[in-house]
């Protein structure tokens, strides 16, 4: 075994992750090569130091009680719901049906309102070049930090140049009664507006497409964020873009 070969295996040897044959070869080399032996000793002393208990952060007093009571609260919430459901099954079922249909209806109409705001935002952004972007950059590392301090969340900004959608910039928008992030991507002569804000529900939804006033819209929820994308680009390419954003 050469010194070079030993270098590539020294950490695995130190961690006891090598098979016996390899370990024996390494031990033989360490007996014969002073330089490697010293380097191994140094690595080993670093490992010893790392295992020192003083590097561990001791659990603060009170954390166990806090965690225990949080979990118990969670458990009791589940338990009481469980009993209640069996006590008055028919009533609860009826109530549940009403709640679910109500949620569904109100969700649909809210989405409808938001969709028209999205189209309005998109049209407005294209009316004058100065409306389109507040920060002009192809670099996500410039655009993302620009939102710091302007929004109470940090929107994910992806570089999709390789996928044929270079980033053009970003701006602030006001949609669904809150400030949101608007990212602008470009495809040939077309602009794609991407509106992002924190979702009101934790559950993810799959992209759904719709057409409004001749514009294509795709909407979904992922990782706690609501996404709306809108463009005059054809639906197939826009859906591809949505998949790239989601990936």
């Amino acid at each position: 075994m050469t010194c070079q070969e030993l270098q590539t295996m020294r950490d695995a040897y130190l961690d006891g992750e090598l098979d016996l044959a390899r370990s024996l070869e390494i031990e033989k080399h360490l007996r014969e090569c002073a330089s490697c032996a010293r380097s191994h000793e140094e690595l080993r002393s670093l490992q010893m130091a790392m295992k020192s208990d003083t590097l561990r952060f001791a659990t603060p007093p009170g954390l166990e009680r806090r965690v225990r009571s949080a979990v118990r609260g969670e458990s009791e919430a589940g338990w009481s719901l469980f009993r209640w459901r069996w006590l008055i099954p028919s009533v609860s079922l009826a109530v549940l049906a009403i709640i679910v249909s109500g949620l569904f209806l109100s969700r649909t109409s809210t989405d409808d309102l938001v969709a028209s705001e999205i189209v309005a935002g998109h049209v407005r952004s294209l009316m004058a070049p100065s409306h389109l972007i507040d920060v002009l950059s192809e670099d996500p590392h410039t655009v993302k930090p620009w939102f710091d301090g302007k929004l109470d969340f940090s929107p994910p900004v992806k570089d999709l140049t390789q996928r044929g959608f270079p980033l053009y910039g970003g701006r602030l928008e006001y949609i669904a009664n809150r400030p949101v992030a608007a990212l602008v991507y470009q495809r040939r002569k077309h602009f794609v507006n991407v509106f992002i804000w924190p979702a009101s529900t934790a559950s993810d939804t799959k992209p759904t497409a719709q057409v409004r006033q001749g514009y294509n819209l795709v909407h979904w929820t992922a990782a706690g964020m609501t996404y709306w994308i809108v463009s005059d680009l054809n639906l197939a390419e826009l859906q591809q873009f949505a998949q790239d954003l989601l990936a």
Partner: protein
Amino acid sequence: MEDRSKLASFEATILPHLGAAYNFAHWLLRNDSDAQDVVQETYLRAFRFFGGFHGGDSRSWLLTIARNACYTWLQQNRSRELMNPIDDAAEIAATDDANPETLLLQRIDTELLRNALEELPIEFREVMVLREMEGLSYKEIAALTEVPIGTVMSRLARARKRLQQTLAGRLNQEV
């Protein structure tokens, strides 16, 4: 009755790993009160998912949830810290072991080491904590951090190299 026995079983198997979860979260978030919040969230999530836990190593299981909770928290609160992921394809810097000004082994100062470890990128910090403090195997770390075993090995090697360089640099400054 099911919920009562679920709680008892959860408390018996998962609560003992509180120290490991807190230490891990503190190293990832580098802050006590954020770590406490995230540990509480970790346990709530763990309790919800506990029905899906079918034996196996309960500590690794909990640490996986803790790690996800930490990354989610960082994404939402300090996303800047996740913006420059390390390059796993990078070569490990060539060693210069011939250089005589090497670390004096017995002199590794725990405080210096703690600072050096805190300054490591999060990908290095997490494998070091899991390997050295929790004693997990490469295979367990690979599953937990969702990278191949080879990547675990190279991250550990690079992390150690960086720690050695930082410690050697600081010692030389002091002398």
